[in-house]
Structures are given as structure tokens and as C-alpha cells.
């Protein structure tokens, strides 16, 4: 992938895709989208970055090992389910919290945390696989 155009444009595309992936993830509860799709978009972005700048560069940009992100995702997804135990409800009962910010009300909920966990798992796992395939050697 030595095309100059691709290498120049790729970081821009990647940035837009990453922002869009977060948007898709967060709007998922009411519109098409969700953590799974968001994670796939973000993973595609990482794959593009890996192709254009090299896997090592993509890893550096990510800062955190992608598998660690995936593991964190499983953790917060499970953790969001455990929260309801403190209210005396069964595992994974959803809890909703409405945050009043001036004019608008921002709904926060445990399913949202759960969806973010799904996002992290999908993003982390697929990025890890893609980057490992793109780069010959891995960083420890």
C-alpha cells in the first residue's frame, strides 16, 4: 500500500471513522447501530491505519494493546450486569439514570455500559487480529 494518496488520506478517514463508530455505538439504543457495529467500524479504521502507516505505527497510535481493550470490554460488560445486584435485583437488571444538564436530559444506563463493553471487545479483538496479520512482528 504505497500509494501516496492513500497514505495521505488514510489518517483523515480513520479519524472520521473512529468518531463515527462512537456515534453509531451510542445511538444504538434508538437508531440502527450499537456496540457490535461500532466496534466493527472502529476495527476497520484500525485495519486501514495499519495498511497505510504500518502495524507498528497503528499500535503506537492506539497506545494500549488491543487485546487488553478487548479484555477490558468483557470486564465492564460483566461489571455493568453486576451493578444491579446492589439494588437487590437479579443479575443484569438494567438501571437507568437521567442526568439533567441545563435544557436536556442525558439518559445513562447499565445497558449503555454493557454496549460500550461489546464495542471494546469487538474493536479490540479484530484490531488485534488485523494488526498481527499486517505487521510481521509484534511488540511485546
Amino acid at each position, binding site marked *: 500500500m504505497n500509494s501516496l494518496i492513500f497514505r495521505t488520506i488514510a489518517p483523515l478517514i480513520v479519524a472520521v471513522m473512529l468518531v463515527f463508530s462512537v456515534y*453509531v455505538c451510542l445511538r*444504538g*439504543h*434508538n*437508531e*440502527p*447501530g*450499537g*456496540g*457490535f*457495529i461500532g466496534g*466493527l*467500524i472502529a*476495527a*476497520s479504521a484500525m*485495519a486501514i491505519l495499519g*495498511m497505510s502507516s504500518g502495524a507498528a505505527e497503528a499500535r503506537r497510535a492506539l497506545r494500549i494493546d488491543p*487485546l487488553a481493550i*478487548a*479484555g477490558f*470490554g*468483557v470486564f465492564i*460488560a*460483566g461489571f455493568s*450486569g453486576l451493578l444491579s445486584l446492589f439494588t437487590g435485583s437479579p*443479575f*443484569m437488571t*438494567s438501571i*437507568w439514570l437521567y442526568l439533567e444538564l441545563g435544557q436536556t436530559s442525558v*439518559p445513562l*444506563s447499565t*445497558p*449503555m455500559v*454493557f*454496549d460500550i*463493553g*461489546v464495542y471494546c*471487545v*469487538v474493536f*479490540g*479483538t*479484530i484490531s*488485534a*487480529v*488485523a494488526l*498481527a*496479520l*499486517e505487521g*510481521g*512482528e*509484534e511488540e*511485546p
Partner: protein
Amino acid sequence: MGFGMDASIALVAIAPFVAALLAPFIHRLARPYAGWVLALVPGGIFLFLLTLIEPVVAGGTVSASIGWVPAYGLELSFLVDGLSLTFALTISGIGTLIVLYSGAYLKTHPHLGRFLGFLLAFMGAMLGLVLADNMLALFMFWELTSVTSFLLIGFDHTRQAARRGAIQALVITNIGGMALLVGAIVVHHLTGSWELSALGGEVRGSGLYGLVLGLFLVAAFTKSAQVPLHFWLPNAMEAPTPVSAFLHSATMVQGGVYLLARTTPWLGGTEAWTWILVCFGGATLLWGGLGALRQNDLKQMLAQTTLASLGLSVLLIGLGTEAAIAAMLLYFVAHAFYKAGLFMVVGAIDHEAGTRDITILGGLADRMPVTFIGAAMASLAMIGLPLTLGYFAKEEMYLGLMHWQWSDMAVLLVLLAGNAMLAGVAMLVLVRPFLGPVLPTPKLAHEAPIAMLAGPVVLGAASIVASVMTDWLGHTLVEPGAAAILGEAVSSHLTLAINPASPLLWLSIATWALGYLVYRQAAAMRTLLRRFGAGLGWTADTVFDAVMFGLIRFSGAVTRLLHHGRLEIYLATVFVGLALALIVPLGVFNGYGALLPNADLGNWSAKLSWPQLQPYEWGVIALALIGLGAVLLATNRLVAILALGIQGTAVALIFLMFGAPDLAFTQFMVEVLSVVILALVMTRLRLDELDQRPLEDLARDGTLALVCGVGVSLLLMVVLSGTLDTRLSDLFTATSVPIAHGHNIVNVILVDYRGFDTLGEISVVMAAGIAIMALLRRRAKPAVPAAPAPRRRRKAAP
């Protein structure tokens, strides 16, 4: 009982586990005194249990229960009655001394903290086992004793013999654990209760009594090492001596004896029960006694006498008379005291003199006077001389057989022989190392430290004190314990008075005399028994090895069969499975005729018509067909992968047109990523760009693909021809906004209604990711210059 009592009794079983977790840190902080600090835990438990004697002796039981899984009616319930209190007091009391002893015995060992942790966890499991009332709690603690004893026996894990002993103990006792679980489930099925205290005669009367009896006996016999499942016990002697002193005196192996005593009220008393227990117990008694005389290693001798003692206990429970049960209880305490003491003495000898071989030890009494006193008190109890607990135990067991029937006489002879051998071994253990001429030892022997002397001396003294206080002993130990086992009030009649007219006295004297004979002829008997053993050729031990190696070979063969490493056969297997899963159920449930066009349709080909589609719909279908055609025709693999992506994109467009935006969205992303990843894999594997499969491979793969495709199409047609049950989707549509606050039902299902499934799925994704990374790393190795580098250098390379 109030919450306070519930919590404290639960704490008896739980506190040792907490202490076990803290043990390594305490060891680090209080290095030379770790044993003293940690002994506070079992010591405290012992003192607490002492306060329960009063209510139990008064005829009551103390029960405690805390919720465990209330949804299934499971309670972590405990019951303290005469039987469990006797066991729990003995376990915690001896446990205190053993922890002290271990602190000194392994003083310089770097992993003493870990060892003490295992020991405390084991004690907690054992206490839970004897206090549990709920059968599932009993099972859990039972298995915990197996696991923790595995850790203890294999503590010295760099030695192969220790590992083997540990695995053997784990395998054998786990077989028993499984039997116990199944037995508990059957009993629950019969009676509807998980609580031991709630069980009555209904099990004995049911048709499944034989099954329940068999399962519980397997559990008890594996744990208590009855012939022919006895062989793990001597091999468990690979553990450090404090472990043997604890496991094989008052705890682990007594678990089976406890289970038998505990189940006596609702399982015992039948003819089968009596016969099986008496026969197996008697056989184990004699086998262990003879086995002890074969050995010259002090520890092995004691291990074999433990077998004999276990057999004796099982036999007594089998007899089930009032005197036999009283004898069993007295014998349990007496045996726990003297056996723990003797093991500790042997450990001290080994520690200070450097050997345990009875043939090269002698005259240690001068150098280790306190150890000698401890050994003397324990051995005299083992011989059963008056003024020890062992005396009463022996008197009681003979008393139960004074009926002059041939069966009683036979049992009496077995008991006499067994007790004589035990007495003989006790004399050997006392006299050979300590008396006689001083023999040179590998280490210059000197007195053991106080923490190692406390055990034998305290236990020996306690044995003597308890035997003097006969009334108190009968009142607090025998009566409540026997009442708990027999289910009726029992009165004790222990007395120190010696009655020369009683046959009991003469039986005791006969035992001692025979024991002395055994002692005198020990060397000759050892030679004889060894010759006999060598002539036998195989033992249960070798059978165990054969079975284990057979298992390993079998699993190796199965693995080689399934895991051959040829990717195309794996894939073919998967798709053949898929095809079968698609076609066979369709045929079985609907009849294969249903797969053909229905006869009612008449001339069905005339009814087909050209579908009325919009131009853009034709466009999408054309796209899918172009993609499909390109996949089939492409000889270049990269082109085929791209074409597959085109076909998938067309499918995603169809989803979009039919109102499944989420699905389409996902499908788009999956197509893009799979093209990217497949292309990357291809370059990574350095596959040839051209697809050069021979014709028969193409035919095989093509056929499989066709069958799978037809199967999926048929399945969809069958699904669509039926009426869909829309109850669930109606429910989701109706409740998505009011309950789950979401308008996107697909997402609401994923993260809320079916969130648990999703949690499982993302865990699988994560696990698959880790597996892929592992594979990729392995692939990366041969890519390193193929020059044969020496092993050391390759390891050092980053």
C-alpha cells in the same frame, strides 16, 4: 438460634480459609513465629467449640443456617450434635498442635507460608465436612478436602513420587466424591430434602436403597481407604510428616468413617450394611496390620496401621450395637490422639536423627527424653494399656461381641488378631528407636524444639487425663455421640475398676500377649511377609498405574484421530456436519417426501411466474450473481476473496431493502473486514495466488457447498411455510420503549433482554481472539532465520 450463632458456626468452617489466604503474608511478616501466630485460628475455633459442649451434652443440638442459593432452596446449614462436635473438637484441637509443629518442622522452608495456608484450608474443609447438615454443602466440603489434601500431599512437587501420591489420592477420593454427589441427588429425589437431619427411614424402605447404599459406601470406602481402594493412603506418605500426622489421624481418612456414622440412622442397620461393613472393615484391619509388619520405615509402618484402624472403625460401625458405636467413638478419639502423636514423634526423629529406618535406630531415649515420653504415652495408648483412652476403646469393642454366636466369635478373632498386630507395631515403634544400644545416626540426634514436642506430649497427657475422668468422658463424649449415631439415648458405663472374673480382662491380656509375640518375631515376620508380597506379583497400586497409563494412551489415540492438523479435512468435517444438521432433521420431522413439490399443486411449473421487481432490485440480484459467478470462475485466490465480498455486499443490500438496517449495517462491516483479513491471512501464509486444487478436490468441495446451500434454502422455505409464532416479537415490540427505554428493538434485545447471551458471545469473541493471536505467534517462529541456532541463544532472543 439467632444470627450470632448462625454466623459463628459458619465461621468455624470459613475462618480457616480466610487464615489460609493470609498465611503467606503472615509468614513473611512473622517469619520464625508464623506457626505460633496461625495456630491462634484453630486454637480459637477449638475454644469456641468447647462452649458448645454444654448444650449438646444437655441433649440438644445446635443448628445454624445461612442462605446459600435461596432460589433453589440450598442452605449452608450446619448441625452440631454429639457426633459432629466430637469430630470438630478433635480436628481443631489436633489442628492447632499440627500448625505449631509445622512451623518448627519446616522452619527453614521457603514456602512454609504456602504450606500453612494449605493446611488451614484443609482444616476448614474438614470442619465444614463434619459440621455440614446440607448434603450439597457436605459434598462441597468433601471435595475441598480432596483438593486441599492433593495440594498437601504434592507439596514437595519437584519429586515425582510426591506428585504421583497426590494424583493418586485425588483420583481415588474424587471417585468417591462423585459417588457421594450422585447418592445425595438420589436421596433428595427420594425424600425431597437436602438436609441430613431431616432424613428418616424412607430411604431404607425404598427400592433404590441398594443404589444409595452402594454410592455412599463407595464414597466412604475411597475416603477411608478400605481394601481394595486402600493403596492411595500409604503412597500419600510422600507428604511432609505434619501432613501425614494430620490427614491420617483425625481428618481426611476419618471423613469416610464420619460419613458412615452420620448415615447410620437412615442408611444403616440392614443386613447388607452390616455384612459389607464388617467384611470390608475386617479385611482392611488385617491387611493393614500385616502391611505394617512388612515395613521398616517408621512412617510407612504408621501409615499401614492407620489402614488397620480405619478398617476397625468401619467394622465397628457395621456391627452397630450400642457398645460397638461407643467403642468406635472412643477409638476415633484415642486413635486420633496417639496416631497424630506418633507421626509427630516420627517426624521429630527424622528431623533430628536424619532417618526413619527402624533397623538402624536405637537408644534415642537419652538424647531425646521428652520425645521419648511423648512416644511412650502414645504407644501405650495404641497397645491399649489401662489409664489410656485406647484401653476403653478396646474394652468396649470386645464387650459388644460377648454373645457367644459363631459370627460374633469370628469377628472377635479378627479383632483380636488386628489389635495384637497393632500392639506389636506400637511396641516396635516405641522400643526400637528409643531403647537398646545407641546406634549411630546420619545426624547427631538431639532434642526437638518445643513446638515439635508440644503435640505428642499434650496429646499423650490428654489421653491419660481423659481416661482417668471416666464419668466425664462417658457423659460428654460417649453418650451424646452414640445418641447422635443411634438416634436414641445411650448410657455410658465406663469404669476404671478391673474385674478379674470378666472375660474382657482376659481378652485384653490375650491381646497384649499376642502383641508381645508379634513384637518378638517382627524380623522373621517381615522377611516372610516380604517374600509373600514379592510372590504376589501385582498389587492394586500397579493396577492403578496400568489404568492411568491406559487412559493417557487412549486420550492420545483419540486426539491423534481428531486432531490430525490437516486444515482441509477440518473444514470438510465442519461442513459435512452442517449439511447433515440441515438435511437430516428436515427429513426426519417432515418425511423426505415433504422436500418434493406438493402433489396438490398439480402442474406446479405452470404456476411459476416471473417476479415483478423494481429495476434496482434486479440490479442487486445481478450484483449477487456476478459476485457468485466470479467466485466460481476465479482461479486467482485474491480475486475470489474480493468476489465473495461483492456477493456479500449484495446480500447486505437485500437486508437493507427488506427493512433490516442493523443486519445490513453489520453485514457491510463484516464483508469489508473479512475481505481485508482473508487477504492478509493469504499473504501471511504465503499461499500461492493461484488456486490449483485437483479436480476431485473441486468436486468434493463443490458438492459440499451445494448440499449446504440447498439445505439452508430448504430450511428457510420450511420456516416460511409455517406460521411464525410472534409472541416473543410482539412482547419485545410492546415493551421495548416502556421497559427498556429503547426504540431499536434489535439493540435492546442484544444488550438488555438477551444481555446474558451477548455477554457469553463477547467472551467467546475474546477467547477466539486470544486463540488466533496464539496461532499467529506460533506461525511467526519459523519466519525467524532458519539457521539452526543453539537452544540457549534462541531463548535469549527477544
